[in-house]
């Protein structure tokens, strides 16, 4: 029995799904819901994603990963039969609500893993980080979208469009990348002149959302196997 709240849970789930018992479980879930066998890979992939979401510390710990995989396989199959339409309790209706309400603390000052590694990230590592960010869209799609845009600017050297807001002269390249990242993630409330909020409110909101983006990137980098010690010392 493997417990969750550790990186190993997702690995256990992946190994189980590749095993004979796991493949049989996938087939059972498809048969029970009268779905074509050609959906086996999609079902397994979605089950892995759900396991990852459940084991990143947001939900209650999972005592038995294999049993949990069986449960999520069934739920994934039902989700397909529902046309993947989610219920109103799950849909994020309130985009107008500031997701940072209730967060404490000031702006993020320290370097992220990616600041340190920006010069040395290999192609494979970068793809792994992007895949981890993709999974993280399950819990925070806006921060994840910003993280992808940040990678495009800070690591790949993408050039934001001229209409993208830019910080005042004297700002760092990193700050400019943050602004671009937030803008491409649709966070229009983070920039001066986009609404009726006070400049201080806008600045705090921008800092909070930048910190959420950096936190997500740091977790993605860790789950992709990058660590600060290796980054600092080679």
């Amino acid at each position, binding site marked *: 029995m493997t417990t969750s709240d550790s990186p190993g849970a997702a690995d256990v789930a992946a190994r189980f799904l590749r095993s004979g018992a796991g493949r049989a479980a996938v087939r059972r879930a498809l048969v*029970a819901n009268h779905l074509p066998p050609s959906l086996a890979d999609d079902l397994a992939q979605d089950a892995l*994603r759900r396991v990852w979401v459940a084991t990143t510390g947001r939900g209650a710990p999972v005592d038995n990963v294999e049993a949990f995989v069986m449960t999520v396989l069934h739920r994934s199959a039902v989700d397909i039969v529902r*046309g*993947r*339409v989610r219920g*109103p309790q799950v849909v994020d209706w309130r985009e107008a609500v500031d997701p940072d309400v209730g967060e404490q603390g000031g702006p993020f000052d320290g370097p992220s893993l990616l600041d340190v590694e920006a010069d040395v990230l290999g192609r494979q590592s970068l793809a792994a980080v992007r895949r981890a960010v993709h999974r993280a869209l399950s819990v925070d799609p806006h921060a994840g*979208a910003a993280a992808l845009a940040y990678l*495009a600017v800070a690591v790949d050297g993408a050039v*934001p469009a001229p209409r993208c807001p830019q910080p005042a002269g004297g700002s760092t390249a990193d700050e400019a990348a943050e602004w671009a990242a937030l803008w491409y993630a649709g966070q229009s409330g983070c920039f001066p002149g986009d609404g009726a909020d006070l400049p201080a409110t806008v600045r705090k909101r921008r800092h909070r959302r930048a910190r959420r983006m950096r936190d997500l990137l740091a977790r993605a980098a860790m789950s992709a196997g990058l660590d600060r010690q290796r980054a600092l010392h080679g």
Partner: protein
Amino acid sequence: MAEPLLGLRVLVAGCDPVARLATVRARPAGPAGSAGLDLGPGVELDVDVADPASLAGLIVELPPTGDPGDLPAALRRRLAALLGPERAAALGTLVADRPDDTVTLPRRLVAGDARRESVAGVAGGSARSVPHAAQSPATGVAPPLQRAALAQVAACAPGVPRLVRAVALLEAAAALHEMSPRLDLRATARHDARVGAELLVDLLADGMVVVPSGRVAGALAPIVRRAVRVLDRDGLLSSRLTALAGDLERGHVARSHGAAPPAAPVPGSQMLGATDPALGDHGFAAAGPGGPTHAPGDAAPVGPALGTGSRSYRYPDRHVRVVIRSLPGAVAEAAATAQRTGTDQVEVRVGGWAERWHGLWARAFDPDDGTLLAAGPLRRDGRDAVARLLVPPRAIGRVEVDITDRPEMPRPSAALAAVGRAIHLGGVAARAERLGDRRSAARRWRQCARAWLGAGDLTRADQALAYAAQVNGGDERAGGRITRPLVSDLIAGPS
């Protein structure tokens, strides 16, 4: 004794002790898939979208540890209200005693009038004899549960116009509230009513509450009034809704007749959405004229583009591939295009979807390995919905984009996209049936059948063809299968 909320039809139950789930159904969901409904902790309901009286699934979460048959008292009460006390008890026995078997639950048992009958189980094919009641009218899922499930799907499907979302949520709330004496769904009802009311109040502020006809206004007013009762503690929302209900009853709400017709589709295009009357039903013109765009790849050219006169394109080979088959629901029939509009920027535009962008995301993928490179939410841009994506320079010349309401999901395989498409087409056919538009319904059922054939599901393909024939055969309610339209159906219209 009150009739069970899931009716008296023969039901089949199964239990997976490892997954800790028990399932009950009348028959599998048909070609339009199912509409799910959360009935509180541990219980979910699915009705067949094309035959909502038919129970496509009741999922019961068993206790995570210990005796799976030791169901909490609150859960047992709910199961008794749904299945009836005898069948709820039989389900409990199944779970406790025979976790791997599949049995047929009897209809209502009548004392002294039982006879034995062998029935086949479901997946395992095991046979089990059960007492069988005398014949009685086979009622199905209670109408309020049907309406709540269908309305929630209408509200939450990708690309649904805001007014349809708002009205559908209020309908769901009203139906759930109606269940309250027997199932405590007040919290769910209040959530749906609140979200629907807030959307509706936003639309009022934007002047976007436009109904197709006086008939629809008359049907909408009682829905709004019921929502006021559900929101009994929210003074501001309730007062706004009460005022709206009065306006609807007095005919003081704008009507949409006379709206500009949508643009004609490019010959050979797949943009069925170009003739979607739902665009005109919202009081604003549909996609304007423009040069045709091309989305190379899987599909024929998609639709006319929108007015692009104010934008300059300095990039050769500016067109970016939109993977049409990956687009969910109604998005697949929209005028979705992608163009390179910056050194490393791709603009994804959905023509005429200024009111339908909520919850939709554009994504850019590396076609070589499927890595997600960029994602951005759609936002209103004039009459369109637009997202701008910043893409790594090395990939800008070959990136592929899609649009989704589930950005965290991987790109669907061809098989999954085919199933999704088939279910969407079935849902559209079912809505056309409810609206009495037999011609649209038959056409959509035939499209649905083709899609299921492509997905490899001959059973559902045959079922869709049978529905097409049934609709063409003139039986307006198809022997009771087709329910009356939702108010949100009347606003959305057939397509």
